[in-house]
């Protein structure tokens, strides 16, 4: 499988003197969903910001679809769609207009845009809200709009930060079904979430972060092993995660 996202030796943070991330290396391949997990402040969102190109690495390199941000900015950016932890919408645009803006920005063909727009509006139960302004939507609905925008672009890589916050049960199901579909079509997904049972059920591999470092990564068996548990039948992802992050507490 081709590697869509490659992070090699990434050290970064807000100040060169005080790095938050320490020598991170991981990859996400086509047709793979990878769960990025860690406690609050572990460095998940900072890692995502580095991948997006919103922060400059102190050391290391981030490759999306084989290119770096500096070598080909447009190719790099068009290779991923991003769903932020907190919905960031334009107050003066309606739900439908957000989709149109995304379609235009990612150069989605007009026919495909119209078709996908209708599908997404229906699937995420947003048809009655298509003309509603972002400022008039509930938090969950705003999150749905963010997810719909990412899905509309159909890029090779999806970077999704805490997608389940505020989503209703139907929204969560639609999102997960869509992500499985995206994966089936060869899309790569990097998803950060605290809902470990869902991450365990849907992700193929996991990256466990703690204090800005990767303390374990791989399949569930590999994470269990890293936590000092039995590889097979030795407990859930949550158990392994708890062991990994509580090490050194005495």
């Amino acid at each position, binding site marked *: 499988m081709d590697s869509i996202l490659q992070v090699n030796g990434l050290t970064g943070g807000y100040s060169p003197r005080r790095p938050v991330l320490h020598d991170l290396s991981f990859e996400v391949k086509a047709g793979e969903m990878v769960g990025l997990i860690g406690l609050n402040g572990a460095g998940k969102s900072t890692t995502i910001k580095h991948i*997006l*190109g919103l922060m400059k690495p102190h050391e290391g390199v981030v490759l999306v679809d084989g290119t770096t941000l500096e070598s080909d900015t447009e190719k790099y*950016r068009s290779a991923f769609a991003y769903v932020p932890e907190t919905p*960031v919408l334009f*107050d003066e645009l309606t739900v439908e207009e957000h989709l149109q803006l995304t*379609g*235009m920005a*990612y150069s989605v063909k007009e026919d495909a845009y119209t078709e996908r727009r209708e599908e997404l509006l229906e699937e995420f139960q947003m048809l009655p809200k298509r003309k509603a302004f972002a400022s008039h939507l509930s938090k969950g609905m705003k999150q749905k709009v963010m997810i719909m925008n990412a899905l509309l672009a159909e890029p090779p890589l999806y970077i999704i930060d805490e997608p389940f916050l505020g989503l209703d049960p139907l929204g969560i199901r639609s999102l997960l079904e869509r992500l499985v579909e995206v994966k089936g079509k060869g899309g790569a997904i990097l998803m950060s979430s605290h809902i470990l049972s869902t991450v365990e059920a849907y992700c193929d591999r996991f990256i466990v972060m703690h204090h800005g470092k990767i303390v374990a990564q791989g399949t569930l068996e590999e994470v269990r092993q890293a936590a000092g548990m039995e590889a097979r039948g030795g407990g859930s992802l949550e158990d392994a995660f708890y062991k990994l992050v509580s090490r050194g507490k005495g």
Partner: protein
Amino acid sequence: MGAKQALEAIWAKRAKAFRKETLPYFRYMGQSGFPAFMSLLFISSAIGYFSLIRNLPEQFPVTAAGVISLTLAICWCPLRTWLEPGDTVFLMPRESDMGGYIRRSLRHTSIGCAILAGIVLLLYLPIYRQGAAPNGAWPLTLAAAGLKAGNVWGAWRERRMAWPGMRLSMRVLRWALTALVLSVWLTNAAWQAALFTVISCLLFMLLHRLPVRHRLPWERLIFEEARTRKRYYVFFGMFIDVPTLPSRTARRSYAAWLLRFIPYAGRNTFVYLYAAALVRTEIGGIVVRLLALGCLVTYWLADAASLAGWGAMLVFVLFTGVAAVQLGSLRHVHRYSVWKHVYPLPEKQRVDQYALVDRLALLVCSLLLWLSAAIPLAVAGLYVPLAAGAACALAYIAIRPSRMRRKLQQDAEEE
């Protein structure tokens, strides 16, 4: 310190904090040409006013002018409460002690509004005396004071209403009733007007008993406070960069249809975004109001062929300039948006597309303003000022995009 005193201390602290926060912006405003412009406007208005009262035309609509100006001054009842969204968590548990806090807000805002209404009344009285004037100055002043107090009460009751539709209906009724009562005071004997006022007020108070009300309308007050703060910053934004506050949006269907004509293509992404921002944010609202006023004043001056047509052109240039300043604030919209960095589009494209929207908007504004002068001036055969005005506007529109690009560049460097 008791609970009520503590709340009033919070009020005083917040009022002081707001003054401290805005003081530097007032300084920046002072350093700009705005005070000079306002002084010029004040002096020209004063000259216009005194020449009007000295030679009041026979057909001057004395009553209509009084009803319009006094209704606006008396009905306008804003309220500064300094309340913030977090107060629904921290102050709401002390709602029963909030009486003093709100009374202080009402007192603080009403005094300023009453002074404004008094000034409008004082300016109107010399005009009123030249009409039928069935009443003296004192009964009118008393009636205006009573109406102002009634409006402050009515506006507060409206804020407490639970349903927005009812609030709007009662506001329309309050404004209409005030206009009606004022027209009765300006055209009838005092005893008749007083009787009418008492009956109207009783009916109005009776009606006010019907709607469902909140004890303290937290959400409404927080919304109004945020809107007022936003307006201050929109104003300061004309002189200096200001913190970005959440902008209020309006659907504005009468202009939003234009968005449908922007072709669906990657090269128009930011044209679409900036056009939507222009149409639906407060910038659009201000520009539309400015245009309406500008077209009206330009037309009046052109129709009167004031200063052989140059008066209308002066106002045309002035309003085009103010519209250009307002449109300039469009570049601050979404300045810190994450999507600017995430969308797979080159930065240059965003700058070019912004410049295109800005230029087109200014072209439309100046064309509408110019046309309102062009028709009467062309009828009067005054072509030279018309051509000079058009040349000025076109020259400015030609150089503006490079100026705006430079400003965007400066903004980007500051970031």
